[in-house]
């Protein structure tokens, strides 16, 4: 029973073996470039680039689609509103609702861009175990307090979840059946409050344990990364990809509208 499943980080593909610092920087770069795209051809080329990375990552397509589906459920909501609320050339109107070409284009743009960014994150970030991610962030000089928050959350989410489960089971074995009643809400209130109190106590004990081991407010990195030749090749590939996506956004629409 684990809360954090890191199935995507298990693998031995090219992207799994790439230096995690490089992957972090690439993901940031590609996500930024994609976020500022304004045209459909640009967004489409970004998505194609992301699909290339997906191919390189060797992740199972079905599992990735499952994850994308979750987010696309939210994007689906936008398709309900954007095409009708964006002003522009009407394509179709019925019951007082006007469907515009601009609206559809906007919804499509959002869909393509979100999926491309998600794929970049899945292929570049999810293929790194959280622990390594922390080490990479540290090597990239991300503020250590932020990094510490990430790693401690990762470490203790599991413990807190188990604590909650134990209490929930304790309630169940004494015949508690959740329903829609003030008593149910109160019970859940007690449960969560206990988890909170326990977590606070635990935080104090952990801090004491850290003090006993000479903690003086500074964390020291243990991990050292080494950039290989393949990493350099991948770095060049990522930068080229980012430039191509950017150019596609600027140049392709000329043919598209013509």
């Amino acid at each position, binding site marked *: 029973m684990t809360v954090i499943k890191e199935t995507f980080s298990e693998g031995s593909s090219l992207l799994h073996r790439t230096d995690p610092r490089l992957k972090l920087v690439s993901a940031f770069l590609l996500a930024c470039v994609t976020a500022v795209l304004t045209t459909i051809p640009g967004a489409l080329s970004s998505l194609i680039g992301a699909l290339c990375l997906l191919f390189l990552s060797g992740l199972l397509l079905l599992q990735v689609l499952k994850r994308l589906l979750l987010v696309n459920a939210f994007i689906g909501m936008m398709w309900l509103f954007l095409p009708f609320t964006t002003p522009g050339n009407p394509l179709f109107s019925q019951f007082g609702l006007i469907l515009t070409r601009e609206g559809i284009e906007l919804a499509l743009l959002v869909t393509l861009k979100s999926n491309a960014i998600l794929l970049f994150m899945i292929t570049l970030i999810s293929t790194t175990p959280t622990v390594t991610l*922390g080490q990479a962030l540290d090597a990239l000089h991300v503020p250590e307090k932020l990094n510490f928050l990430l*790693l*401690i959350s990762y*470490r203790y989410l599991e413990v807190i979840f188990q604590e909650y489960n134990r209490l929930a089971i304790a309630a169940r074995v004494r015949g508690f059946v959740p329903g829609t009643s003030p008593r149910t809400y109160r019970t859940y209130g007690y449960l969560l409050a206990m988890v909170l109190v326990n977590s606070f106590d635990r935080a104090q004990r952990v801090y*004491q344990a850290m003090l006993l*081991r*000479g*903690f003086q407010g500074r964390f*020291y990195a*243990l991990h050292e990364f080494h950039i290989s030749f393949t990493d350099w090749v991948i770095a060049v590939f990522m930068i080229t990809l980012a430039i191509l996506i950017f150019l596609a956004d600027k140049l392709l629409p000329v043919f598209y509208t013509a």
Partner: protein
Amino acid sequence: MTNNAPLLILEDISFSYPGSRQPVLNSLDFRLGGNQRVGLIGPNGQGKTTFLHVCLGLLPLQSGRVLFKGTQIRTKHDLRQLRRNIGLVFQNPEDQLFCPTVLEDVAFGPLNLGFTPAQARERAAEVLDVVGLSGFEKRITHKLSGGEKKLLSLATILAMQPRALLLDEPTAGLDPDTREKVIRIIKNLNLGLLIVSHDWDFLYQTTAELKTLEQGKLINRDRNVLHQHVHYHPSGHVPHEHETGRQAVVGGR
């Protein structure tokens, strides 16, 4: 051994929790030598853990003083020296292991003491070998079994190369195999020991002296009594004495 001068001396220590009339520790005296092995036994809620925490300054002193190698602990620097030399292993390893990987957790202490990453790795490998967790370096801490976590939390403290160890219920919740392992490891340590436990047999195997904490004071107990009576009977968990052939030994300092 020449290091039999007391490492840790507690003089006239008192401590009570706010809102409680009964002091947990009541002008208590204690000393621990560099190769002294002391067991501390007694019912829950008698302040055994509080005592350990007061020893290392995790709880503020309300009266009395703590001396490390004859020097009174006054400043933060003294406290760091004390904690570096006297290790405390918590009852619950979850409280002690907070790094994502085994290696990072063991290396945390040495790195804080100013070791280079390479030295810290070396030290980590040594202590992991001592507790039988060689090859666990890259494992994720929270995915270890309860027994492995216990052994690891011991390793993280040993990595500081302490002169003495304070252990809080080291066998609580362990399976017989891991318990045996812990006994073997502790027996092989050449350190001062203060072990708090309910496990009579464990204390018999690992320590040479026995004390109980009663009404805020430490009382020496005759260890032979413990030796002859590893057994079960009603209320066996309450500290008690048995007829030993001679007069029943009660207290006795």
